[in-house]
């Protein structure tokens, strides 16, 4: 039997809007779930998704993708990547799985919300496929690390992290809840797919895939490449919504939602992806610096994407460009110094060769962030390990939930951005985070940072042991230096050599 080509029937098949007869339009598409800003049903029918796929095509392609990734894993299970890879690379895997796997599954619920409540038929169709994508991403990124759990309990955090009060998990949850879990169909399209996935997922998945291949971890490389092909499709859900919003007088609303999501995504990537790329990945396997990736994938490409859909650069663009130079270096020191509080073993990345690479990529690194590593290095070499650990908590931003930090040393520029709201003093790391809060204070005001919780007596006893217990970190799971401090002795020897 002759079959029609997809494009001969696709438009008719996905024209699934109808005129409701027994209920009002707002009952069929409740505004609080659809988020349609008063724009009537027929206006959404001009939505035209750039990537069209039918369900049978989807199933066929996805089956092939899964077969590819799982067969690479099966073939390489005896390759002993866990035993042979650099410990810094193992930390990349642990940090990635813990922060991402369960949130992928979470994202499937938001895709489902778009699939049901989006007023645009094309959006609903694409989101149906996106929903299944995210279920796949959740499952595959829980299954792949599972083979390592019996050897290393930190890999159990792929599944466990999001059920804990560990600080990085709180930061990730706060951001993901804000940009998709607690948003309506239009907001999810703009904030999750357009801002986060178009803007930033490329960083985590394309960048890491390149580094994984260099590191010889073909299992992880094929896994995340497989995921990225889905992301590049369903990331396109949000874009076609924007011309509809702009044409119906809602440009400012669209711009604001994207600006919020992009800023929040940036902060999370500065603590997750920045240290992974510039410190954990073995030096010889680094394809580009985090800053170079950011400029290629965010500054250039995302800016172009914004202009293409009729929007402007976010108001904080210059601040973002500035932070790309330094923010992740401070985040990295924070993670390393408070290392018992993470589920992976941070790689310091401060050997002589690594410091030379950092200085080349970030001129002035040695005179700023390097001064902190100088003190840490000397303490390690002296055996004064107590001084390489904290005895208090960092102050946490009330928006991004990350330590408030900036450039140290003679160019010291650390600043609190305080904000008094209804009698409570809030602390922000940046004007960007404060601005997000001010857009909808009632949305954020009730949340307590880890420090707020400590001061409120939620963490008992009020010491490191109490904090680790509160965060769900058991012995055998708490982080330590990935390379057993070998880098410090190398750095010290290099300094002595230069002095002699």
């Amino acid at each position: 039997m002759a079959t029609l080509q997809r494009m001969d029937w696709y438009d008719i098949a996905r024209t699934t809007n109808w005129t409701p007869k027994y209920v009002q339009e707002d009952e069929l598409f409740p505004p609080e779930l659809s988020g349609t800003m008063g724009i009537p049903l027929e206006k959404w029918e001009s939505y035209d998704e750039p990537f069209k796929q039918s369900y049978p095509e989807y199933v066929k392609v996805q089956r092939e993708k899964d077969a590819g990734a799982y067969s690479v894993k099966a073939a390489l299970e005896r390759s002993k990547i866990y035993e042979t890879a650099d410990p810094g690379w193992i930390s990349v895997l642990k940090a990635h799985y813990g922060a991402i796997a369960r949130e992928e599954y979470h994202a499937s619920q938001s895709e489902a919300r778009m699939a049901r409540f989006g007023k645009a038929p094309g959006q609903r169709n694409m989101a149906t496929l996106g929903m299944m994508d995210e279920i796949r991403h959740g499952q595959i990124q829980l299954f792949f690390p599972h083979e390592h759990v019996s050897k290393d309990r930190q890999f159990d955090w792929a599944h466990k992290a999001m059920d804990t009060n560990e600080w990085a998990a709180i930061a990730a949850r706060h951001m993901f809840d804000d940009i998709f879990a607690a948003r309506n169909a239009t907001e999810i399209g703009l904030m999750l797919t357009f801002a986060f996935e178009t803007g930033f997922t490329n960083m985590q998945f394309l960048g890491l895939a390149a580094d994984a291949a260099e590191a010889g971890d073909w299992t992880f490389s094929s896994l995340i490449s497989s995921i990225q092909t889905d992301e590049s499709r369903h990331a396109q859900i949000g874009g076609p919504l924007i011309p509809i919003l702009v044409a119906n007088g809602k440009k400012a609303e669209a711009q604001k939602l994207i600006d919020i999501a992009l800023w929040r995504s940036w902060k999370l990537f500065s603590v997750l992806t920045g240290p992974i790329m510039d410190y954990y990945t073995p030096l010889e396997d680094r394809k580009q610096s985090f800053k170079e990736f950011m400029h290629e994938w965010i500054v250039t490409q995302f800016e172009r994407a914004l202009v293409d859909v009729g929007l402007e650069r976010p108001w904080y663009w210059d601040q973002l460009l500035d932070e790309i130079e330094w923010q992740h270096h401070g985040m990295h020191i924070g993670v390393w110094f408070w290392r018992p509080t993470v589920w992976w073993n941070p790689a310091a990345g401060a050997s002589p060769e690594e410091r030379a690479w950092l200085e080349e990529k970030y001129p002035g690194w040695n005179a700023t962030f390097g001064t902190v590593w100088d003190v840490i290095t000397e303490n390690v070499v002296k055996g004064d390990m107590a001084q390489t650990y904290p005895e208090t908590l960092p102050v946490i931003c009330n928006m991004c939930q990350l330590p408030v930090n900036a450039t140290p040393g003679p160019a010291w520029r650390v600043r609190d951005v305080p904000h008094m709201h209804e009698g409570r003093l809030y602390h922000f790391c940046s004007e960007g985070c404060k601005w997000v809060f001010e857009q909808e204070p009632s949305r954020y005001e009730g949340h307590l940072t880890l420090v707020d919780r400590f001061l409120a007596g939620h963490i008992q006893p009020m010491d490191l042991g109490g904090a680790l217990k509160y965060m769900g970190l058991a012995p055998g799971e708490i982080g330590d230096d990935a390379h057993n401090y070998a880098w410090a002795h190398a750095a010290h020897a290099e300094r002595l050599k230069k002095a002699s």
Partner: protein
Amino acid sequence: MALFPLTSNFEGDFVLQLVAVDTDNTMDEVASAAAHHSVNRRVADRPGHGLRVRRQGVKEPFPRTLKVGESGLHPMECIEVIWEAPASPR
């Protein structure tokens, strides 16, 4: 006399930190408490230098003997702890 949390921004360090002091503590004692969490951990000591405490954004430091409870600081307000030369022992 009561426990009083402050946000410490120590000159040369990279991060804001929680520092628990007492309303009866002097500014010199506050500086010392803040230094405990920064100096020789991530900030090199500066022998012979003293430390002063000031409100963020204010150039003049607090008097060294001023008590926290009399300073007008809010709980968790950000203080800057800055090096001072020549020496004033801490």
